[in-house]
């Protein structure tokens, strides 16, 4: 058993899953926004990065790690709500490229601002859990307490989001305003407030992913979420952009495939792995793997 756990294949599976849950989280946050406002938030990664920077400023000065995580997530949520109110609200009903352009601009502003305030050099945040692999009978098992923390936290956030949407009154209102805004409004749901809450929720989920990434060996720097955003967008698109479960599954698929291409094919082509997967999925099922109805795509 321990020999199996320390085999190369398990190394790649654990590594792929650990990376995959991050993609799943960010993809989930993209789907939440997409469902409520039909905007693909290109600044999602940058907003989470910015919130992490704000939250982690005090970490070396006596403020505990978990307090900093809490501040990061709260700042992220506030940023998400404000973004919807200020930047996105004026654009409802406009051509669909307008919000894309605005969010791309916001991405540029946030990254440049972060570099201006905190410099572009990588910051390493002392992680709360060790990155050293466990051992069993003298064999390395490719799991560290940090990887376990990463996977457990991500999964609990996903379960929390699922429960919120499935079992609470707020979740019902959120789903209703995404599905049928006019009817919901007639039935007394404050739809515009629901849209803002959707953005707040989504930004919170994104911030947790950014905090995990910043705490690991990747570190915190202004563009540290760029690659993760791209992979997560691909994950969400593979899942169909409409489906939360699809986004989570897509994230895990991208994480694993990336890891296996890196290990067994060539690290040189690894940057292309996301595009390859997306192209294959789009060729077979243009509406995504997890979308039930095939809506007309033009």
């Amino acid at each position, binding site marked *: 058993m321990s020999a199996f756990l320390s085999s190369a294949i398990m190394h790649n599976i654990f590594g792929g899953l650990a990376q995959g849950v991050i993609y799943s989280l960010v993809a989930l946050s993209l789907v939440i926004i997409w469902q409520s406002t039909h905007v693909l938030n290109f600044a999602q990664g940058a907003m989470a990065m910015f919130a992490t920077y704000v939250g982690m400023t005090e970490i070396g000065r006596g403020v505990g790690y978990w307090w900093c995580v809490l501040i990061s997530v709260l700042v992220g949520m506030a940023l998400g709500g404000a973004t919807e109110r200020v930047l996105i609200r004026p654009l409802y009903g406009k051509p669909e490229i307008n919000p*894309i352009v605005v969010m791309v601009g916001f991405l*540029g502003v*946030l990254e440049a601002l972060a570099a201006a305030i905190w410099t572009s050099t990588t910051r390493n945040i002392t992680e709360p859990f060790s990155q050293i692999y466990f051992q069993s009978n003298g064999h390395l098992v490719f799991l560290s307490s940090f990887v376990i923390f990463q996977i457990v936290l991500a999964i609990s956030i996903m379960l929390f989001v699922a429960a919120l949407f499935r079992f609470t009154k707020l979740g019902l209102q959120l789903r209703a305003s995404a599905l049928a805004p006019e009817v919901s409004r007639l039935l007394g749901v404050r739809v515009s407030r629901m849209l803002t809450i959707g953005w707040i929720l989504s930004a919170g989920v994104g911030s947790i992913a950014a905090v995990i990434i910043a705490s690991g060996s990747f570190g915190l720097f202004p563009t540290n979420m760029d690659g993760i955003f791209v992979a997560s967008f691909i994950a969400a698109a593979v899942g169909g952009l409409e489906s939360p479960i699809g986004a989570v599954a897509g994230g895990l698929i991208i994480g694993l495939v990336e890891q296996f291409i890196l290990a067994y094919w060539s690290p040189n082509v690894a940057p292309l792995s996301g595009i390859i997967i997306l192209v294959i999925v789009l060729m077979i099922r243009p509406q995504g793997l997890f979308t039930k109805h095939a809506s007309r795509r033009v």
Partner: protein
Amino acid sequence: MNWWTSLRRQETTHSRLLGVLFLTLLTLAITFILPPVADSELAGGAAIAIVILGLSWLTGWSGQISLGNSGFMAVGAYAAGIWAHHHATTPLFFTFVLAIVIGGISGLIIAIPSTRLHGPYLAGMTLAFSAAVTPLAQNFTSVTGGEGGIFMNSLVTPKWFTHFFSGQNAAINANAQWTADLAVVTAGVAFFFMANLFHSRSGRAMRLVRDNDVAAELMGVNLSRTRTMAFVVSAAFAGLGGALYSLLEASVRPETFPITLSITLLTLMVLGGIGTLSGAVIGGIIYSFSANLVSHVNALTGVNPTSNLGANMQGIIFGVLLILTMLFAPRGLVSLATPMKRLFRARPQKPASEQVH
């Protein structure tokens, strides 16, 4: 009626040729006045204007959006750089044609799966492409030269041209201006081609596809072929612009084409006005002056240009401008000028009956 208004009324290939020729000659004349440093900046603006024009065509005329044009620029630049590295004697014209063709082919490869996509999917797909280009260029060291990139030989100034220059740095100044003039002429040719494309059958089909794809399909326009064609042209323009840009920089390096370049291109296109020739010209001019503009802003606000804030000022300004333009003047700076243009336009002549004799 004077010849100019009649030209404007019935725009033909001839009138477009005249218009582009006039602007090109004017810009060439300006390069003789400007100091060499400004000439180089102008040349960079001309290269970027070609890329903006391609992007503008894609977004304004076919309604698609691309965040991948910095990637297509890189493809064109590397195609030209690698070829010129191995075949130093190839005339520049053929190197540019190669960049256009390879850029177009890369556009085709991205377009085939992407044209089924719309708005956000397409933008994400092209973003994934431009995000992949830089690491690919860094990884395949044997072909691309890795981080260090490839050096390109600078242009040889012809003998007759150097006679215009005298003094201490005559040779250097002549070379700077010859390079700038070449960039301007290349941009002129690209603009002439695009001006005709705007008014061609494909251009009209493209607008119909953008505005009403069902009607377009009914009229026999092949939707996916039209959209793919828009993408290929856009990528070919980016390829040419990228090759020209690298020639001006005298090297092709991965860090020349970051994702932020795609954001810059988008900003310049939106500022100038989407889907217009003048918009691309304005975008190119803004790019030429952006370094000066940023140092002016730094000087005005008292920010130290070598500080973190000073170094990132361009990113902040461009991002804020992009957001503000999209929110308040989505048709670009040109649209702000329309009310002013109305002021200066000649009043319509009163009907004869109202004229007092």
